[in-house]
């Protein structure tokens, strides 16, 4: 297992570096950071001054190698836009994004798993049909639209929650629901399919023959195996929540990594964009690795295999 983890960690690093290389060249081809930093009405002299100050007049590959050597020393550079070390900038915001991501994941788990289980146990009834309808509807609703509707309902019409910001736990309720809701359909469907499959398997039949019924049958025998694919998906969803919270954080003015990513891209803040892409790639690979480890822990057959 240790070898496996080390292999995956090396892969994560390779993926992150490859993605950062692609991002670096694409960003530099797409835009000139000096213009973005200077602002819309800056004098040409100011733009040139900025280009020289930030070393943007050097060849692209020199700048990338510079960045790479910095990364190897643990130095991710200084943000053009925020004018402070990128690592410090990310460290300031990572807590907010993790809070949002885990809250959203909790929302997903609390809705999707019971709903999927209920749909599976009541197959072809109105409960099942309702759950499937809910899943389809939730998938069809874009995050920004759901966010807007929730703001209207719970912050404007019934002002019980704040519209935007991140200073109290109440500020996270709506965004966590918006971000969590987007993951409900795949997790719920997977839970339903998995449980239906498990409930029809031989060992469940054996358990029934031994007298297990209802809750005991579900909790002790069925759920554990039905959760296997769900755990993998949840781990990937966590990665998506961390990296994909751009729209939700922007709508609710949450000062996390997603909003930072958007600001950095719009401001052509290449050092920050690179670090975030590097970080998000690592998070994705790490959460996939976590899913594999959890699966191995839940299913002894995977460990043996």
């Amino acid at each position, binding site marked *: 297992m240790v070898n496996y983890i080390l292999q995956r960690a090396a892969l994560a690093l390779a993926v992150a570096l490859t993605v950062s290389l692609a991002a670096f060249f694409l960003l530099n081809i797409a*835009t000139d950071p000096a213009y973005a930093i200077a602002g819309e*009405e800056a004098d040409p002299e100011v733009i040139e001054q900025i280009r020289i100050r930030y070393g943007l007049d050097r060849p692209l590959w020199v700048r990338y190698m510079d960045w790479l050597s910095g990364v190897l020393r643990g130095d991710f550079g200084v943000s053009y836009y925020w004018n402070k070390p990128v690592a410090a900038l990310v460290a300031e915001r990572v807590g907010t994004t993790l809070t949002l991501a885990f809250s959203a994941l909790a929302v997903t788990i609390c809705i999707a798993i019971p709903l999927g289980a209920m749909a599976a146990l009541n197959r072809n009834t109105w409960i099942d049909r309702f759950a499937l309808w809910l899943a389809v509807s939730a998938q069809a609703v*874009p995050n920004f639209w759901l966010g807007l509707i929730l703001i*209207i309902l719970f912050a404007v019409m019934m002002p019980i929650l704040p519209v935007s910001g991140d200073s109290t736990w109440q500020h996270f309720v709506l965004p966590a629901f918006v971000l969590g809701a987007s993951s409900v359909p795949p997790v719920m469907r997977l839970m339903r399919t998995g449980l239906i499959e498990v409930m029809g398997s031989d060992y469940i039949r054996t358990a029934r023959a031994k007298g297990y019924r209802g809750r005991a049958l579900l909790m002790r025998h069925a759920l554990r195996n039905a959760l296997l694919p769900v755990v993998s998906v949840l781990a990937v969803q966590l990665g998506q929540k961390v990296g994909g919270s751009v729209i939700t954080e922007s709508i609710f003015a949450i000062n996390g990594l997603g909003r930072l990513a958007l*600001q950095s891209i719009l401001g052509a803040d290449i050092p920050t964009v690179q670090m975030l892409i590097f970080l998000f790639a690592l998070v994705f690979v790490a959460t996939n690795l976590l899913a594999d480890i959890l699966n191995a822990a839940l299913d002894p057959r995977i460990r043996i295999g």
Partner: protein
Amino acid sequence: MMTRFTRAFGPVVLATGLAFGTLAAAGPQDDTLRAAMAGEILNLDYLYTTRREYIVLAQMTDATLFNMNPDTQQIEPGVALSYEFVDDMTIDVQLRDDVRFHDGSPLTAADVAYTYNWVTNEESESHAQALISRWLDRVEVTGDHSLRFHLSAINPLIIRDMAQRVMLRKEGAYHQGDSVDTNAMAIDLIGAGPYRVASFEPGVEVVLERFDDFYGNAPEIGTIVVRNLPDMGTQQAELMSGGINWMFNVPLDVARSLGAQPSIDHLAGPDLRVSFIVMDAAGLAQEDGPMTNLQVRRAMNHAVNKPEIAEFLMGGGASEAIYSACHPVQFGCVQDVMRYEYDPERARALLAEAGYPDGFSLDLWAYRERPVSEAVMADLEAVGIDVNLRYVQLETLNQARAQREIPAYIGTWGSSGVADTALIARVHFSDTSDRHLSGDAQVVEWVMAAEQTADQDARLALYSQAITRIAEQAYWVPLVSYSADYLVTSDLEFPLDNDGVPRLQNASWK
């Protein structure tokens, strides 16, 4: 996509919601004006910034030697009581003796000299350096409250630059012993304006408190909180729920929709920003391209229906069609120039005369106000020009233009809120600017000559010649002036100024 959606449907949904719901009260109870800005506030030091949001903040936190009256465009005393030209290259300035910085220390001539000498020092890397270095050699302290400015060049905008670009700093503000810190004022700003910074979280919120020792008229509102809310839909929701009292740069459709609510007012006033099409008359991108042909450029001027764009797409309080290559209220922006009224038939005839009876293909670049860009595209296509609209980020357009890849683009310019043609002419018609696509040496000569004399009559004559020739040669298609649209809660009195710069320090409660 998100912004377009929320712009399109946000007001409708919110208005529907209001019909069934109740509004949280927004008002002056805590004497705090909460304003929203979409652009991130990252640096409070205007010596190191340029965007409009920072101008708005600097007006509140900083003091300058002189003030500009936005209605009359006249220079008025600020920290300085008066100025006097000793000769063409020397100005004496007399300061007030009752000005204090936000930390309580008195402002003296040494502080002013330090500020100006620092700005022009290459080490400062100030965004104002290029502008001020054009005319300032050094500043000398001649008394506790008197200074002498030694100039390096004559420039008609010296006093205006003093009024608008150089915010005064304490002596040594950027120095700690031998070390220099250009970010020293970015977060912990010590200004001398009507509001002092109580707290600042970059990208999130700036809290300003009224500065009781301010030398000028005290603002009426005690606290101003500026929040960064990037999404327009969120700003609308905050406005309706009482979370904010003021938002600006509001799209016309949103402003009209929400302004119809009883608790919200839509305010619209003039703005110095104008839009225009710049054509590659010099053939920098395409040596013998259609844009090098005068008849084609005139045809394009006749093809675009500017009055309808102004009325139906820009709208608001003050948007209007323009015919000169500047804003009509700017000094030197003469209006009796060759006019190209909307006349598609004339445009088709001119194209045929130019040898393009079947039109031609044109890459038209744009970065702002997409509906306007699409209207222009439709008008040009109606006379036979096959337009490929390249709608991109501003930085991409700038980069392509610098690489001489743009045959024509729709540009906009706000002149930093300064009502003088110099602010738009130099950057678009000088050899040092990559925005200059006319290739007309005569226009460049007039524009540069206008910057080398302080004689206002001579300047007016030079700009008149330049603007007239630009129109005759149809180097631009001037389009429309902008309107500044705001949404405010109806308990807020917010006066609008002619230069389109919002001055929150002049707001009060009704």
